[in-house]
Each structure stands twice: as structure tokens, then as C-alpha cells.
């Protein structure tokens, strides 16, 4: 049995499930809306709604989106619910720990990474990262700097509104709350890299031709989309990225890099639950099948 934590509208999960169906390998998809329970019966039993699965029958786990959790706000009382929550967290951590003992993609712990720690570790692994600093006041520099959210989110929703926090190139001095300033790196192309258990699939994104997407390619130009084609990383860069992923205890992730006009590889960030469909489809890598094969074996 393969256990998959995911969401109803995740097309990548659906594509992987298609291959598992072809192979005739049983799998169960757990959604965030499911009600989960755990008991020690039969050396560990999971209940997903009415469905019962023994831990010993699970041979692979894919933490695509989410992890084992117990929903509880039984008392509608802050203190009582807090007590219950603290109690449940112990159970959740234990079950997730057990689930991570088998072959897995992603992990319960690795759903989020700290950008500042990632950058420090990237430097320690020998990767080039753009100069950056956390400051309140920004003084006009000789070099161009950009400001972006330290959590990596470019937008969030509030009620019926979407608040977009663009990546901005700075020309003046500014004062603000503590902000993440990063030296602007000229790019020949961007790289989006999918990493899975020591293997790399890379895509080059040619965005420089298009002024609309120069700082952040996620601002799509639908008329003339950026060119996305397969790319091979130099082995020295792969070794440094492997070092980073291992030091972060990540077995999978989506990595962003820049290749500068002088062909230097610059590391930007890693997302442990990044979309791989956006690398797989344009490059015809068929990562959905790679994942299904990994989970099946």
C-alpha cells in the first residue's frame, strides 16, 4: 500500500495515480478534509474516515501536500482545546515519524524550510548566493538591490482580496520594518530544478528577452511565454546541491537558480513541496512516471 497526502485538485497527484493504476499497485490518498485517527492496534493502525490501514502494510509514503494530523476543537474553549492540541501534536509527530521510516518522498518535517538557514547552508556547501542582508533602512548602493518577502510568498489572500508583494528593484533609499534585501543578479536564464533522492531534472527559463518578466518570471506573459527547455547542470553544481539537500534533510524539492551572463550558477531558494509539473511537462521529463516508479518499487 502506498499512502499519499495530497489535495483534491492537484493534477500532479492525479497523473501519478494514473500510473499506479496501470501498475495495479494499491494506494490511498489522504486529503486535508479527511478525519484521521490512530491506534496501536495491529502494531499501528491508521483510520482515514471509515477506511482502515495497518502501518505494516504501508511500503511507501508521498508527502505531496500535508501530513498526518488530528483535527480537534472539541471544546470550543481556548484553554481546553489548547491542552488537547498539545496532546495531539505528540501523537501526530509520532505517527509521522513512523510513516517516515518507510520509503518516502518528502517528509512531514520538511514541508517548510527557513530561507535564512537555507542560504547559510547553501554558502557552506560552496554554492554562490547573491549578497543579502536583513535591515530596517535601505541606503542607496552602488549595486542594484531587490527587496522580497523572506518567506518566499509573493502573494496572500485576505477575504475577497489578493495582496501581491512584488519583487522590487530599488533605486532610492527607504525605511521600513525589517526587510530582506538581496543584491540583484543579472541573468542569462533562470533554472528550475526538480530534485528527488539524489537525481536532478533541470529546466532553463529564458525570461530576459521579455521586460514583463525580468525580475520575476511568475508574472506570465501569455502572448509570448518564456522559453522553457531541458538543461543539464554541471556535475560540480549537482554535488553542491546534493550537499545542501542532505544538510536540510530534504529528499525532494524544487530549486531555483540563476545562470549569469558570465555563466556562473547562483542559488536562490529551495521549495520542499514545489510543483514539478511545471518542469515535467515543458521538458517532457515525465516525472509523474518517475515518481510512480519510485513509489512502486
Amino acid at each position, binding site marked *: 500500500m502506498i499512502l499519499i497526502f495530497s489535495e483534491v485538485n492537484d493534477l500532479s497527484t492525479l*497523473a501519478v495515480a494514473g500510473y499506479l493504476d*496501470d501498475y495495479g499497485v494499491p494506494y490511498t490518498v489522504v486529503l486535508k478534509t479527511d478525519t484521521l485517527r490512530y491506534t496501536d492496534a495491529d502494531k499501528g493502525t491508521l483510520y482515514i474516515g471509515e477506511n482502515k490501514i495497518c502501518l505494516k502494510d504501508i511500503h511507501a509514503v508521498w508527502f505531496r501536500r500535508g501530513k498526518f494530523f488530528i483535527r480537534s476543537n472539541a471544546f470550543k474553549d481556548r484553554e481546553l482545546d489548547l491542552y488537547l492540541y498539545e496532546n495531539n501534536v505528540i501523537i501526530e509527530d509520532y505517527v509521522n515519524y513512523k510513516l517516515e521510516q518507510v520509503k518516502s518522498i518528502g517528509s512531514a518535517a520538511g514541508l517548510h524550510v527557513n530561507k535564512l538557514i537555507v542560504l547559510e547552508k547553501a554558502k557552506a556547501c560552496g554554492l554562490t548566493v547573491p549578497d543579502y542582508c536583513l535591515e530596517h533602512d535601505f541606503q542607496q548602493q552602488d549595486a542594484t538591490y531587490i527587496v522580497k518577502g523572506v518567506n518566499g510568498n509573493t502573494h496572500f489572500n485576505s477575504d475577497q482580496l489578493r495582496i501581491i508583494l512584488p519583487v522590487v528593484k530599488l533605486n532610492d533609499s527607504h525605511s521600513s520594518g525589517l526587510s530582506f534585501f538581496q543584491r540583484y543578479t543579472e541573468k542569462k536564464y533562470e533554472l528550475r530544478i526538480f530534485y528527488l533522492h539524489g537525481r536532478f531534472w533541470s529546466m532553463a527559463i*529564458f525570461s530576459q528577452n521579455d521586460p514583463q518578466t525580468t525580475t520575476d518570471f511568475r508574472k506570465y506573459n501569455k502572448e509570448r*511565454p518564456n522559453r*522553457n527547455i*531541458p538543461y543539464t547542470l554541471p556535475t560540480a553544481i549537482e554535488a553542491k546541491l546534493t550537499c545542501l539537500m542532505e544538510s536540510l534533510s530534504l529528499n525532494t524539492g524544487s530549486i531555483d537558480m540563476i545562470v549569469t551572463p558570465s555563466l556562473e550558477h547562483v542559488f536562490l531558494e529551495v521549495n520542499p513541496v514545489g510543483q514539478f509539473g511545471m518542469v515535467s511537462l515543458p521538458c517532457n*521529463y515525465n516525472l509523474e*512516471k518517475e515518481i510512480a516508479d519510485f513509489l512502486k518499487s
Partner: protein
Amino acid sequence: MTYFKLFTNCIVSKGIARSLICDLQRQSSTLIPNDLVAIITELDSATSVEDLFRQYGAENRETISEYLAYLTENEYGFYCESLEEFNRFPPMSTAFSGSGKITNAVIEVSEDMERNLGTILEQLNGLRCTSLVLMFYRPMDIDGLQSVLERFDGTEISSVEIVTAYHEAVGADFLKNLNARLTPLTSILFYNAPFDRTDPWDRNIYFDVRFSRSNIHSFKHCGIVSAAYFDTNFPKVLEAMNHNSCLHKKIGIDIHGNIKNCPAMETSFGNIRETKLAEALEHPGFKQYWGLTKDDIAVCRDCEYRYICTDCRAYTGRTHIDTGGLDTSKPLKCGYDPYTNEWAEWSVHPLRQEAIRYYGLEELVRNNE
């Protein structure tokens, strides 16, 4: 040294007289002269731009510069500063992949079959067929169509296209009623209509609606090859490069319930009354044409459009048979000549009259005139 790389998601399809760049990412194809293909091939084999100019000599300098400017301006390629950079861009795999034993099905729905459609759909869903065409050679009222579409509830079929006869009640209310419920309906064609018109789906009606004056009374109408049916996209082109572009992962059920690769083909692999679709699929002959690509077909193999066009094995020119007994003749209903790059009406060609008689298409051809 400077090198030039064609973006690897642009595939050059070389024809005998001219060629095509199939831009899989931007979903469009453009004709190019074969001289340019020779230059692209040279550059792709890691010849530097400087060496290329040297090879072609001063008299071709201007032409090559124009070609390179054409490729960069249209974003078909880019310059690399070194061989090392050039080699970091591997060719894109042209493998075709995708799960499911069947991806598409065409069913001629008799009145008998309409009653048992549920069990057929259940089988198709089990084979993980996602796209379906239902041919009704009769007018269907709103209740009939709705009860057909209700049977898709809970399946993973993501597209149903319906062909049915036009009748008086078909109008705005009819379509609105059909749209009232969420179904996988993506297009409906009313033939025998008093007018020709296509209304693409919009925010009010979630499927394409097409009216045609043609009278579609059998599947003999299928198999047309024309530029209107050309498609440039990843799955379409990659499938055509590796498999038969029409018959791969297709299943057909004809009006008598015979299970075939396509309803217009001759060989039946059982009848739905006694044979399961999965059993028919296991028959050694069922998939015989699945691996036959346009590169194996006479004339088509010389055609620049071969990967964006969709083949037909039901109606062919009946001129070529390969050693395995497969029909490798050009589709009968294609009027394109890749040697002259001209389109002509296929049905008047003197060499096709025998095939037209063989398939019993005389009446259909007459009506089209």
C-alpha cells in the same frame, strides 16, 4: 566561438520539398525552406557560427545572416557563448507517455445500445478512457441527451463529444437546459441543420456548439485530412512521432455493437453483447496499427505536416502493403501533395476512383460536390 541552438521544444519536421518548425511550447507550426533546415542541422551538430559562415562562403553570407536573424527574432533559437554552454542543453526527449490502456473511444450509439450505455461506460472508465465521441444518427430530445450525460456521473471521463441530428426544438433554451447540469460535454454537432455555424464555448454554454448542413448518416464521413485538423501541441505531436496518430489507444464500437479499433475499420474483435472491451483489446490483431507512424506510410513520410496531421487507416489509397500485411498507403481523403506543396480535391483524383468504389463512398462523394 559562438554557437547557435534551436530551442529544443521546437521540432523540425523535414519534408521532401519544404519543412516545418513545430513549436510545441507555443503550439504553432511554421513552414521553412529546406535550405534553412540544412543550416539548423549543421548548427545543431555543434558547428560554430563562425565555421558555418566559412563553410558556406562569402556568397551565402547574407542569406545565412538573414536566416539566423529570422530564428532569433521569432525566438526559435539562441546563441551560446561556448561549446560548454551549448552542450548544457540536451535534446528534449521525444518519447510519448501517459497512463491508461485506452485514451479515447468512438461509439456509434444505436437505440439498443443507448439503453445499455451504462455498462459500456463502466468498461471504458475501467480502461481509463478519458475522451469519448458518441454518434447518434438520429435526432435526440433534451431528456434523451440528459439521460445519456447523467451516466457519466462518477466516471473519470473528462470529455464527451456528441454528434446528433438537428431538429426543431434545438435552440437557446435547449442548450441552456443541456448546460444546467455539470457534465463532461465539451462539444455537440447538429448535422442536417438549416445553416452552418460554430459557436465556441463561452461563459454561458460550457461546450462548443456546431451546426452543419451536412447529412451525417454513417461513419463513412470520417477520415478527412485537412489543414483545419492540424494541431501542434506536446501530446499530439509526440504521439504522432511514436504511434499511429489516429488509432493509438483508441477503441471503436460500430452501430451493430462490433468492437473495432475504429468504427469505420473492417476487422471486428467481438460484439459488445458477448465480448468485454478489455478482452477485445487483448486480441493480437487489435493493436496492429498502433505502432504505424507517418514515417512508415507512403507519401506521408515525405510530408512536412506528418506530425501535426492525424492519420486514417480506415480509408486509404490502397496502393501499399508492408511485409507484415499492414496497409501503408496514404489516407484516401488527403488532397495534399508534399512533392508539389499543393492542395487538391481528393475525390476527383483519377487514381483514387477504385478505392472510392471499394469503400462504397460514391454517394458521399457525389453529395459533397
